[in-house]
């Protein structure tokens, strides 16, 4: 087990709710849940791998695929929905040439939907990496993409 993973496992091993915390931190650290890491966690915690796989695929925040350098999280909460979030999602999808839930071929951008980031007063909202754009419009989409293109 590499040090990053063992540190995470050690921190939560034996705690109530530890497993979910471990998966969350692994996802945060690696950007996804690598198969090898899941296997190691399963053997370290003596939990069946099938249980980890079940959790990893049940929760929408977890992914088994590597994400892009930047992730656009298009909020599709109710307030954003009625303020035309579907059109914004379509525009991102068209310009990035990926369907929601996927990553561009050059691994630069992931396009995801999120069920509400709680910025409903600023609908429609887009989460980019850790920040949020409020009152987004379809016209702004090319500029938003441009802002992150080529950055790390």
């Amino acid at each position: 087990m590499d040090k990053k993973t063992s540190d995470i496992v050690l921190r939560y091993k034996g705690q109530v709710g530890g497993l979910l915390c471990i998966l969350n931190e692994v996802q945060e650290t690696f950007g996804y849940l690598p198969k090898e890491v899941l296997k190691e966690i399963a053997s370290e915690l003596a939990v069946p791998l099938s249980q980890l796989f079940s959790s990893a695929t049940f929760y929408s925040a977890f992914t088994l695929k590597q994400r892009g350098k930047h992730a656009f999280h298009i909020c599709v909460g109710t307030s954003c929905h009625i303020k035309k979030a579907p059109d914004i999602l379509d525009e991102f999808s068209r310009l990035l040439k990926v369907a929601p839930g996927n990553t561009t071929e050059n691994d630069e951008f992931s396009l995801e939907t999120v069920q509400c980031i709680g910025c409903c007063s600023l609908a429609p909202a887009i989460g980019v990496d850790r920040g949020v754009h409020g009152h987004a419009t379809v016209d702004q989409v090319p500029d938003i993409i441009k802002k992150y293109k080529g950055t790390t």
Partner: protein
Amino acid sequence: MKIRTFFDLERIRAKGISFLFPGKLKISVGMGSCGIAAGADAVYEKLSETMKTVVPEGILNKTGCLGFCGEEPFVNVSMPHKPLVIYHRLLERDVPELLEHVMRGEHYRQKVFCKMDILENFMLPKALRFGDGYPDFPSIHDTPFYSKQKRIVLRESGVIDPESIEEYIAVGGYASLLRVLENGSSEAVVKVIQNSGLRGRGGAGFSTGVKWDIAHKLTSDLKYIICNSDEGNPGAYMNRGEVESDPHMLIEGMIIGGFGIGATDGIVYVRTEYPLVVERLRQALEQARYYGFLGKNICNSSFSFDIHIICGAGSFVCGEETALIASVEGFPGRPRPRPPFPSENGLAGKPTVVNNVETLCNVPVIFAKGAKWYSSIGSESSKGTKVFSLVGDVKHTGLVEVPMGTTLKEIIYDIGGGGIDGRKIKAVQIGGPSGGCIPSHLFDLPVDYESLQGSGAIMGSGGMVVLDEQSCIVDVTKYFLAFTCGESCGKCIPCRRGLEHMLYILDAICDGRGSMEQLAELMEVAEIVRITSLCGMGQAAPNQVISTIRYFKDEYEVHIKERKCPAGVCKSLL
């Protein structure tokens, strides 16, 4: 430094008061998630950079969300013995002009929203006073958005610094906890909550006192109190606002609850989509530990208790208490049949009380003012206030706190200012994926648990999405069905297959392929899912369909018979 007595608390309170009223210029930027999304972080940085040179004696800090989120970013400016002046829509580019005025001891009128003379407070015997002056600025209580609100949970939201425990203590925080521990009776704690009439703010409205009483009476080596902060209702963010703006209120409520039921451990289960909530809570917990409000022998009593945070991972059904417990136990969040109820047999088989954030936020004030005071607010069956997130096609959007029993009309028209650009409001969606739509002709309805249920919606956790003539009821219904269908955990057949079939019919109607027979079938399947699903999520998911067919059947019929979408939303019918 551990706080043991009221004398200790008073010393920290004095420190907090000196932060709140520093006797010199103080500028506070509203840094909730929505403020930050509207540009508050750039405002903060610009202020920080510029103040150093132009007003080096001034203090700059953060505050939470004042609740009027549509008017963000908010900036509060206070000068000694003068009212707190609240600015709205203050952007980075406005900072130089603001500081130029402030340097001269004046205010930048064009951006002033209102003033606040006193800091309304229910926790202290006497209100805290900012000062008098500025007769030309409207008082916060005279602004349409705030005049009809009664802010108990949100009382200091957007005024105190959420990252300072001292400021929370300054406004009366942790005094309730100290009083409860000094009294030493956990029975008394449960009794007070029972007498207050407090009911769960997560949606179902179960009596908090009864829940606590069940767990309190059971003997067990371990007992848990879990705060459900898995606010998954899309289009609602009450709990996010509450915790980001005043995390200690929740922590104090939880410690009192933990003492009442005899809990050994507390868990806050937070949505992963709310990173700022996690950050503020983590910081607040550390501060509470530092002062000895958490840990061994809290405030010199025999009670030991701690709280830790567990992040969810993006699942709506985890808001259901048994699913939440399964999730904490490391399994996928699938509900379990009740009974047994978690209060008897919950996390790891131990008695576990699961309470919503807002429920627990009400606890400290109930102990400060008494059960009688609390139960005098609200309606016959529903006591206290409720925070709603008022969003959608309405002029003023934000978090609104009103006494239970306030009518929808007052909330949407008086506080919300009515429709945008004079457009007609058609309905309000209450309760999110578990709720339903209430048409505008029923807006005289008082908002409490029973009235809303009778109308076909539910109180829910407080989501209120206003829909005007540009929103299509059938499309919104399809939206919610697509949501619940995607979030169904798949354990029971009615929810897994029934919702899928309902979505299939709604898709057909929105595509111009629907028939009246299908509409009848939709209603039939909805009833079956409602009656036979395993958990609250499945049972409530058809509400949106049932309520909209009840009130907006004509809109469905136009989609089916005329192949038209009157609002112009359904693309296949344009």
